[in-house]
């Protein structure tokens, strides 16, 4: 009976018990398995060492404030009234030169029209021309008192609320302030259909109803 084949236990802790050829006494992991694991781990660490910083580098701007916080002069207070929009050009990102230039439509804040509980009061209403559908530049038609988008037919009333077409929310506005009798324009903000203020969103992002939960705000805002 001494020559009968040894019984091996596949679940044995020791390589010897598992019947692996060349096993040492008390050995639990084969050298081959150890080298495999070491090589894979070293390769994984080396890959992560360049992949993670690279990924962070590419994705970093998602998590930081990228638009410069500037106030730009639009002209003296006398230029503006509560009744009509005045066109002014400001630069959303001066670092890209002419490409950053955008038109704003500016009028004086009219308490009778604009004031309502829960709305942020601004001395002036500065409406962004960036259509809330896909970002084409809208134009104000004085005769019909509407903002009209040339790309896909979005129509907004004189307050920037959607009247027709594909846009999902009113036109964005900019913060305004008056410094030494001159009107200045600052950061963009978005509004929902009740003209309540929200942090700036991309065009096409909803701010009403259940839809708004599908479009999270940027982490920095």
């Amino acid at each position, binding site marked *: 009976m001494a020559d009968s084949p040894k019984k091996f236990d596949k679940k044995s802790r020791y390589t010897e018990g598992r019947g692996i050829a060349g096993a040492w006494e008390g050995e639990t992991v084969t050298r081959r398995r150890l080298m495999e694991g070491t090589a894979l781990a070293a390769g994984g660490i080396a890959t992560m060492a360049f992949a993670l910083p690279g990924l962070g580098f590419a994705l970093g701007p998602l998590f930081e404030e990228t638009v410069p916080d500037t106030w730009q002069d639009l002209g003296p207070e006398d230029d503006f009234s509560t009744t009509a929009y005045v066109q002014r050009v400001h630069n959303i990102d001066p*670092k890209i030169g002419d490409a950053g230039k955008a038109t704003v439509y500016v009028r004086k804040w009219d308490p009778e029209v604009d004031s309502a509980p829960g709305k942020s009061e601004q001395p002036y209403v500065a409406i962004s021309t960036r259509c809330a559908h896909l970002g084409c530049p809208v134009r104000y038609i004085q005769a019909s008192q509407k903002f009209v988008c040339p790309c896909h037919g979005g129509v907004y009333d004189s307050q920037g609320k959607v009247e027709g077409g594909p846009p999902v929310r009113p036109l964005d506005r900019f913060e305004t302030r008056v410094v030494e009798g001159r009107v200045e324009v600052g950061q963009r903000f978005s509004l929902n259909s009740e003209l309540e203020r929200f942090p700036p969103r*991309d*065009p096409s992002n909803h701010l009403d109803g259940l839809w708004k939960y*599908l479009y999270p705000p940027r982490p920095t805002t």
Partner: protein
Amino acid sequence: MKLPSPPLPRALRRSPPRPGENGRNGAPGRNGGPATKPTAKDQAVEGAASVVGWLDERTGASPFLRGFLYRKVPKGTNWYYTLGSATMFAFLSQAVTGVFLAMYYEPDPTRAYESASRITNEVFLGEFVRGMHKWGSTVMIILIFLHMGRVFFFGAYKYPRELNWVIGVVLIVLTLVMGLTGYLLPFDQRSFWATVVAVNLNSSGPIVGPYLADFLRVGSEFGPTTITRFYALHMLAVPGLIAALIGAHLYLVAKLGTTAPPWLKAEKKDLLREEV
């Protein structure tokens, strides 16, 4: 089975010795005369053959090339089967013209338009190379969709070639990404607003949309690094991926072979066939 001889052009192959001649050049000639000197042509042929042989001995490339270039194709293979190669050559043309355009182009918001119009108006053959790149992109899109149509209507996507179909779909998407990222680079009004709208289209996707748009724009507004990001995607990231996937695509084509057109039925197995 006898395989064709290695892919050596006929002009480079050694000709067998004439009867009565000793095999090697330089050996004593007929009738014990003086040794014939190898002619210049003989030397050129010998040199080229030995270079090819040297490479082949060290790379073992010729069995691979033989299998790849001389593989069997089914009956009924026709011109529609060349659409894939045509797409690949369109890609190669885009790659080559793109490299040369990159020698003059400056991906900077204040310099991009100027440098692009300099390529068109001042650089020797610049208008031609830029035109090749611009129209070539359209040609590539048309060809890739014709190729997809061929594969679809011939049923060539079926087992065991599903993976190659999937790779092909990824290649189509990457080609469209090339079109999108390249469109911004001339940096005129058209490309600027097209990109604004395209990025906002990305933003309209739920949950990930706004983040994707931020990634493409490098922030919440179209900024000074948007164009450099598009440029890097357009000339480094996406072409590299496309080249790698074309390699995988071709490997699978060579490995699995092509399919016969659907109108050809399999030959019936005749138990008795009359030999004429």
